[in-house]
């Protein structure tokens, strides 16, 4: 199962303060769907406002990105630039 960390304070209102989750999902789309099932509305928040770091590599808008059973997944705020 992927180990998911959502340390950003904007996630806490959705998760009731929980910041770490174990999720079985083959890809990002299914991961978001599972988190939304557990915490309604969280999926939309992730889709709109979060980037997803999988094993150290930051992904944005990457629904098809695969997850390994032992993947480390961090939800972090979306990043722009100048």
């Amino acid at each position, binding site marked *: 199962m992927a180990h998911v*960390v959502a340390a950003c304070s904007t996630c806490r209102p959705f998760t009731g303060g929980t910041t770490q989750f174990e999720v079985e999902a083959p890809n990002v789309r299914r991961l978001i769907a599972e988190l939304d099932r557990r915490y309604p509305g969280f999926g939309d928040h992730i889709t709109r406002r979060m980037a997803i770091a999988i094993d150290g*590599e930051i992904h944005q*808008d990457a629904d098809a990105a695969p997850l390994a059973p032992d993947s480390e997944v961090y939800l972090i705020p979306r*990043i*722009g*630039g*100048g």
Partner: protein
Amino acid sequence: MSDFLDRSEATLDLKVVGTRPVRPDGADKVTGRATFGADFAMPGMLVGKIKRSPHAHAAIVSIDTRKARALAGVKAVVTAADFPDLASEAYEAGEGAANLRDLSLNCMARGKALYDGHAVAAVAATSSVIADAALDMIEVTYEVLAHVIDVEDAMAPDAPLLHAHLFTEGLEAKPDKPSNIAQRNRLTRGDLEAGFAMADVVLEARYTTAAVHQGYIEPHACVAAFGADGQCQVWSSSQGQFMVRTYCAKLLGLESSDIRVTPAEIGGGFGGKTTVYLEPVALALSRLAGAPVKMVMSREEVFRATGPTSGAVIEVKLGARADGTLVAADVVLKYQAGAFPGSPVGAGSMTALACYDVPNFRVTGFDVVTNSPKVAAYRAPGAPIAAFGIESAIDELALKLGMDPLALRMKNAVRDGVKAAYGPTFRNIGYVETLEAIQNHPHYTAPLEPGQGRGVAVGFWFNIGGESTAAVNVGEDGTAVVVTGNPDIGGSRAAMAMMAAEVLGLPIEKVRPIVADTAAIGFSMLTGGSRTTFATGMAVTQAAQKIVVDLKRRAAQIWEVGADQVDWIDGAAVCLDASKTHPDLTLAALAARSARTGGPIGAQVSLTAQGAGPGFAAHICDVEVDRETGHVTILRYTAAQDVGRAIHPAYVEGQIQGGVAQGIGWALNEEYIFDRDGRMENAGFLDYRMPVASDLPMIEPILIEVANPRHPFGAKGVGEAPIVPPLAAVANAVRAAIGVRMTGLPLSPPKIRAAIDAR
């Protein structure tokens, strides 16, 4: 000259990538032929101008435009009433999600003016003189309100409120009353209290930075034509024609397919042209007038009404063992957002400790609205501000510990496998190599004279990927055109052409890059976040690779062999079938026969690029301080950076030198100065002092090439990391020169004199 350190696993046999060809836009720019936003003109074009609030905070009681409308030559007048009253909605189009209501209100105030310079009305007239006269005839009745600009004043419970509907996000419980604090974010790890209990040395300090502008040479400019059939065209200078299209459509209630945006040549952006100010207004005026409208900001308008970056307060508490091991860090960042929420404090929080492996920390960020222009992105948004605090504190900690400041940084440096302070585990980073390059550079041990000082600082930026489209089309003579949707703000056209040439096996002179309008190429995110060479370059490379596959198929068809019997070497198809004796078929030869082998040769690729590698920078700065005047002279500056692989090294060096130059200005001179009524007092380059060439030594870049495995040529973004360290590198050098720690930017001569006098 640059030093190179190649740590890539694979040694590619590259013929074009890594060379320094003449830039494709160079001749146009040096001969004046390049068409910038203000250069475009159409028959029957009107002049558009904006009336701006003279108050920092005021209720708009009424706007009477009747006299202006009656003036001969005035063809249109608009106010907020001519724009849809949008609901609050976050929409992804520019640099992350923008709130469409805030964006609309920033283009044209509705009910309230929130800063000096806020647009309240606009006119289109047959001449500039008539437009100015019409602006004077618009009668706006204001009820002046108390204003607040300082970030900590704005956070006070009794501060004048900018928005009655704004409640702080990110708190454990929703607050029961509105505030100017739009959001509080927090990153934590470990046990902060236990960490500080382990510390042998604890350092606490408070730092401040002033709001500074991106300072692009070219003011915002556009021409908009709203057709009678509802089809619109916009020509403008921006960092993203698709961003302009989307925002104009949303702000005016139009379909995006009804708006065609053509990117003008751009005279600098640095993040400041990742949003719209003029384009929706020009379209609204053009719709009313039935004629094209041109709008060009003055420099004063650029300062008063477009995004600077935040002024800020940075509070830092560091704990370390006697051997220099960092054990705890507590950081508070308070950033001005300007009139609407959205300061870069989130990125500031994530980057603050990104260079350090600290087991226990807490970073708290506050996004605070103030009666000043809405901030816009500025190179590595938020990171230089945080780094000024952290890197100054690390320098002070090194002094307390009696350690070499680079050795202290090396001891606590993040490496592959270390969890970044913002969460994920670092992979394929070149930070230690960057530090080593600085440590081993002769500059670091060069002797200094009395009155001179040396400072070092480091910096980090994420870099991003995102959506890009690119097309490569081969002409009948075997030359190629590369088409992308990204304005070229830092040399991306050259890089695009070089990557295509490398794959196709063409000399660079045979590949011409262009930046297309929104109707001629598929969607691309704007040029920003140091993404274009990485992400759009990936699309270009893949498009060229598709063409090579097609060319091999065509050659196989001509030779009547299997496609697996054809290779592509140095720009020609080579037959691998030993039983055949065909001469090689060059790209030109295949292009000449394209009609008989399947038609025109070309390919387009659209993708969302993932895996942008982060950038790290380490800088050394030498200064001399005139103790009589307080003037600081930058004597020598060396900047090392992990750049992945430099596609066009001269452009990469230019990015580093440009970032350093802007950082030096931020450190020494630049600041927004407001009078007691909240009006900007220095809205011009005479009084807002940016560094010019004569203020700076030759900045020596060192390119550290730790290849990014997710890019076909190993590229990482390079445009942002170089502006992160200079603020602290300069301040640390000044500390070494005068023996006094300066904690507030800019380090202007009066402040330095006062600090010396107060010793």
